[in-house]
């Protein structure tokens, strides 16, 4: 369906609502050509709800308008915290305004893109079309509340941004009726080229390398290296590589080694422990350490159930220590003929956690 129809449909949306709510969930395969029973036709309301894109020929642009003044008010409440009061902020995202001149508006080419006077490329230095600003703000801004702006608010915000670049005067009202005229004043409207071979897989590359195999260069010159002060700027590289195998990471917390470490890797950084700190709960520990092979929560297996143990030792002084010793050294058949084997592999900490959990459930 065409975008014109879409605009018409927007107006007729209310009339459609009742009709489409009945249609929307009908899993009809109406319109299927080859794969019966798969998919269904979209309702007009559904297409309107989702098809919000605006092309540079303004296909898809909703009717509406907004003034620079209105835009400034919205800007200051919803946008300035990230982008700065005048769109100049470089705190969170790159600046929106700056680097364009009245001359650029005449030529459609931003001079500062080639004279390198501007330290950073701003949005207005790059964007060739107003439609792009309108589409993106409406679809994705504010960053933490996308799709919360109305079309009129969007017009107002675009008008405000354009005024920051002096593309429209401070009393301007931007609307669907005049937006195409405004687009003809964008400072970088002539600054884009599609004349290159990267748009299509069959395009022609702009450069090609050399196939030389021997004696290709007279002199190898190193043009760029990382400065010494940046050695540890990305953290300790030793901790970003395997601690074993032939390719370790260099310990960038220290200066380079004077000589080869040798096959044993002596002198190389070894993170003391690659084991992630165990944050497993007692229940997982109980299973991993195979306690659950003999002890079930509520039923007697080979050994007594957790519930039975907890009941037996309830309110007994010293139960924790007594059972911790029992776990370490083994039991003697208190609950039946089969003694509990010693569990010396458990750390004291793990034994304490397990016994406390058995006794208290905590």
């Amino acid at each position: 369906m065409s975008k014109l129809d879409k605009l018409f449909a927007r107006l007729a949306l209310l009339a459609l609502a009742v009709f489409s709510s009945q249609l929307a969930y009908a899993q009809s395969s109406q319109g299927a050509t080859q794969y019966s029973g798969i998919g269904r036709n979209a309702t007009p309301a559904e297409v309107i709800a989702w098809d919000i894109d605006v092309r540079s020929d303004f296909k898809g642009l909703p009717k509406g308008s907004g003034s620079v003044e209105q835009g400034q008010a919205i800007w200051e409440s919803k946008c300035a915290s990230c982008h700065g009061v005048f769109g100049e902020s470089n705190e969170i995202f790159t600046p929106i305004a700056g680097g364009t001149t009245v001359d650029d508006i005449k030529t459609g080419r931003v001079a500062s893109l080639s004279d390198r006077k501007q330290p950073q490329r701003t949005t207005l230095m790059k964007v060739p079309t107003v439609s792009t600003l309108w589409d993106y703000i409406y679809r994705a801004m504010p960053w933490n509340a996308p799709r919360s702006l109305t079309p009129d608010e969007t017009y107002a915000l675009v008008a405000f941004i354009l005024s920051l670049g002096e593309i429209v005067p401070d009393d301007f009202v931007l609307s669907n009726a005049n937006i195409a005229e405004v687009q003809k004043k964008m400072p970088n409207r002539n600054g884009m080229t599609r004349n290159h071979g990267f748009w299509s897989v069959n395009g022609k590359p702009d450069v090609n390398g050399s196939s030389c195999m021997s004696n290709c260069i007279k002199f190898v010159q190193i043009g760029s290296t990382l400065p010494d002060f940046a050695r540890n700027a990305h953290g300790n590289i030793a901790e970003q590589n395997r601690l074993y195998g032939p390719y370790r990471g260099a310990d960038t917390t220290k200066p380079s080694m004077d000589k080869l470490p040798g096959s044993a890797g002596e002198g190389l950084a070894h993170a003391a422990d690659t084991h992630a700190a165990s944050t497993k709960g007692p229940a997982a520990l109980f299973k991993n350490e195979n306690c659950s092979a003999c002890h079930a929560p509520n039923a007697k297996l080979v050994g007594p159930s957790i519930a039975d143990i907890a009941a037996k030792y309830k309110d007994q002084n010293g139960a924790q220590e007594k059972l911790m010793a029992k776990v370490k050294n083994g039991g003697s058949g208190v609950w039946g003929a089969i003694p509990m084997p010693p569990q010396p592999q458990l750390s004291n900490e793990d034994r304490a956690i397990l016994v406390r959990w058995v006794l208290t459930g905590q």
Partner: protein
Amino acid sequence: MEKSAHRARLVKAPEHFVSQDLIADINANGIDETRRGFLRKGFLSAVGGAAAGLTAPMAFAVGEGDPAILEKQEWQTTLGKNVATMPYGVPSIYEANLIRRESPGLTRVAASSVAFTPLQGLFGTITPNGLHFERHHQGWYNLNPETHRLMVNGMVKNARVFTMNDLMRLPSVSRTHFIECGANTGLEWGNVAVPTVQYTHGMLSCCEFTGVPLKVLLEECGADLKKGKFLLAEGGDGSGMTRTINLESCLEDTIVAWSMNGEMLRPENGFPLRLVVPGVQGVSWVKWLRRLEVGDMPWNTKDEAVHYIELMPNGMHRQYASIQECKSVITTPSGGQQLLDKGFYNISGMAWSGRGKIKRVDVSFDGGNNWRTARLETPVLTKSITRFNIDWVWDGSPAILQSRAVDDTGYIQPSIKVLRDLRGNRSIYHNNAIQSWKLDSNGEVSNVQVG
């Protein structure tokens, strides 16, 4: 970690616990209760600690061999973990260093940032799903697959809606392709900026993707592919990411995919649905894909008019540069690594091309003066990563390692100088230059640029 003592063990019988005098006495006079008592006492003192559950280690003298062989290890002498202890498996604890990482200072907000794949630790061609690089524009989500919809509209006979149930019933294909961000290696346009291959090339992954061919879906909806040469792909995330796809170039091999490497897409990579556009920069592989619109011109969206454009020296920007050209990098050894010793090494790396298959890879050890052809590991697939290996014996002297790939169109990977001479150094995107790693005589490898 506390070293475990041993359970379920065989205790070696103690030796030499009986004195020579007692042996002579028993031999001469036989055994009686007194002598039996001596024996018992001697034995008990000999096994000493065993009662407390400790094994007497076998006493090997230093120098008799490798303790890793001579001494019993915990995993030989105790009961291991149960099946399904880890119901969804994770890598060994010894692999904890190989994770996705952000590059410090690259971005200011983590919801619109990059986490790089640790290429320095990978083998073969496939990227494990948990290490696939991440790049989001407005954060990531766990979308509910039950309520996820794909709409196809625009220049089609019928605008249609598909649920995941619908899509996953359609005839699917599984194809292995690389995905590379257009800005991969972009930090290095001006000069060396980052230390390791994780940060220079880590916006690169390669998976087997499963999904329905785009063409099948478009034809099902009656798309006018004569007039409709372009497709808008739109994501369901907050940024509502929109990208124009060039159907003339991409119609045949683009996939509407729900799976990577045999499981559903990970949420960070677009669960439950993403576009797979082989050979084209990652931003066009729209994640959380919710809509496809057929149209007759490109859309000029924000990420086609403000970002993902390439500044040339004359102040013009190239727009819609999409194809990821032929490129390669040596991953072992690579920047930030430390060789232990002189001697033999298998030098290994990855090569890929957005225009087709890798035809050959040459490797230089002297900064590009002389080259040798590497072995390509099979299968060599189109628009996919190909692994190359080459033998090298390092004599301990400084070296500069480079790799140079050629694809089946005949295109040869260029040097950074060739690229800069034409495009300047402010382009950011599509840097497919030959990478140089300098190896010093102390075994350290660092990132350098040559020429």
